[in-house]
């Protein structure tokens, strides 16, 4: 029997009203402003921009406020907003060698030109709760040094001189865009990187960690990690030349991976690459490790059957909006589906009982 049901409008309306009230919290506490979220919860803002795939700190702050701090919900809001915007075009590829670096470290070369610049990092903190922050207090200004005027060169290029590292030939092939065309497998490295940079930080981290624990181990060192600001340049057709249309903050990670050589490639170092909106260091490193693991075929390595080597597995499950949409839909009404399941189980039960009865009678 099929019974169509309708209703719940009033309940939904009231639930939304209560949700809004809960979002505000106690009226005795001052309301959060968007600049407060943007300035003081900057890393949450960065994550929402990276996985929402839209660089706009004010919008990300709004989404975090609206989502009551649920970052996946905030990412969902940004993704939804993104689809309403006309696309004016694509930028020229950003030149990260020209980055104004806030942070730049290398685990492989101590004395790289430009040096080891720690930047505003959590590394070397003791991870002890700082109760001074519970009370409000003025923060002393950070010390200043002599600002570097020239660009900071990429460290990896020093290995290239000796021909010890796999080459990364520059091309200008227009990349596929998974927001426009559904991904087909096997895919390409540019599409994999687009998928990973907007993938869930936790998922990409877990995949990267699995390679470190031995599931397609690829012996990664962080050749270079840099965080800073780059200019975004775009060709403007009506002008006939390109202009800089903005500055964005990026985190870039290049890994150097040990490689014993394969049937097709000599022993050399290989590369993994991570590039993420905002200051998103964990994500950039994880992205580089997973990128490297997914390159096994191109480098002639063996398929070890590891999850991080399986691009269909990794890329189909890295998007937290797809994942949460499918996951959470099972809580919505499935009354009719379940009704038919119920009927089926009852029928099977009856048949099993009848069979047992007839067997008993026969004996």
């Amino acid at each position, binding site marked *: 029997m099929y019974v169509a049901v309708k209703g719940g409008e009033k309940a939904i309306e009231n639930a939304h009203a209560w949700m809004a009230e809960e979002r505000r919290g106690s009226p005795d506490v001052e309301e959060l402003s968007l600049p407060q979220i943007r300035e003081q919860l900057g890393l949450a803002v960065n994550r929402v921009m990276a996985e929402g795939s839209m660089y706009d700190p004010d919008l990300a702050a709004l989404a975090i406020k609206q989502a009551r701090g649920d970052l996946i919900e905030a990412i969902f809001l940004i993704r939804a907003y993104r689809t309403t915007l006309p696309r004016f075009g694509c930028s020229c590829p950003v030149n990260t060698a020209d980055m104004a670096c806030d942070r730049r470290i290398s685990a492989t070369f101590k004395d790289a030109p430009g040096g080891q610049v720690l930047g505003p990092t959590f590394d070397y903190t003791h991870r002890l709760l700082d109760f001074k922050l519970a009370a409000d207090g003025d923060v002393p200004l950070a010390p200043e040094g002599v600002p570097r005027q020239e660009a900071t060169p990429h460290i*990896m290029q020093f290995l290239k001189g000796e021909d010890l590292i796999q080459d990364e030939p520059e091309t200008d092939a227009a990349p596929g865009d998974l927001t426009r065309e559904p991904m087909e497998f096997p895919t390409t490295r540019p599409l994999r990187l687009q998928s990973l940079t907007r993938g869930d930080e936790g998922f990409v981290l877990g995949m990267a960690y699995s390679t470190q624990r031995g599931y397609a181990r690829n012996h990664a060192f962080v050749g270079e990690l840099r965080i800073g600001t780059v200019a975004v340049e775009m060709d403007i057709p009506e*002008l006939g030349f390109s202009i800089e249309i903005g500055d964005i903050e990026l985190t870039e990670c290049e890994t150097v991976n040990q490689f014993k050589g394969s049937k097709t490639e000599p022993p050399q170092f290989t590369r993994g690459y991570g590039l993420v909106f905002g200051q998103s260091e964990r994500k950039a490193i994880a992205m580089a490790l997973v990128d490297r693991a997914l390159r096994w075929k191109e480098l002639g390595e063996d398929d070890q059957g590891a999850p991080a080597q399986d691009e269909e597995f990794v890329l189909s499950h890295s998007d937290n909006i797809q994942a949460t949409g499918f996951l959470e839909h099972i809580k919505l009404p499935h009354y009719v589906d379940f009704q038919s399941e119920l009927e089926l189980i009852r029928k099977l039960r009856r048949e099993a009982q009848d069979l047992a009865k007839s067997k008993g009678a026969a004996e």
Partner: protein
Amino acid sequence: MEQEKTPHWDRQAWMGVLARAPEDALLALWAQYDARPAFDWLRPPEVGGVMVRGRTGARGAPFNLGEMTVTRCSLVLQDGTVGHAYVQGRSKAKAEAAAAIDALMQTAAAPRVTKSVIEPLAHQRQAARTARAAKAAATKVEFFTMVRGEDQ
């Protein structure tokens, strides 16, 4: 010799300064400019996205990183000069000011606009960048080689 003191700005450079300027800084300087021109819209301000691209391994094949918000508009002054703006963010007021300034920069008003808007914005940006670079420089590691026992 007023003009000698005003270095030449090409259009690419001033449009880049306008695109990246913080909204409040640009609007504050523009509000003080006393000869803001009348104009007609060719394309009223419109908020959209631009897909930002990176390169694999920083130097290889292009890939799509994600979008950024951009507002654009185009206008024409009474004398027929056309001004365009493509500016970062979602401020229509900022785009309008940037397009009007772009138009004026192609006219005889260029030296005045340069002095009162473009140069202050460029200086503000440079100062902000230098301040960050100075803080970064203070976090640069100075290594000391320790003398080890067995080497003595």
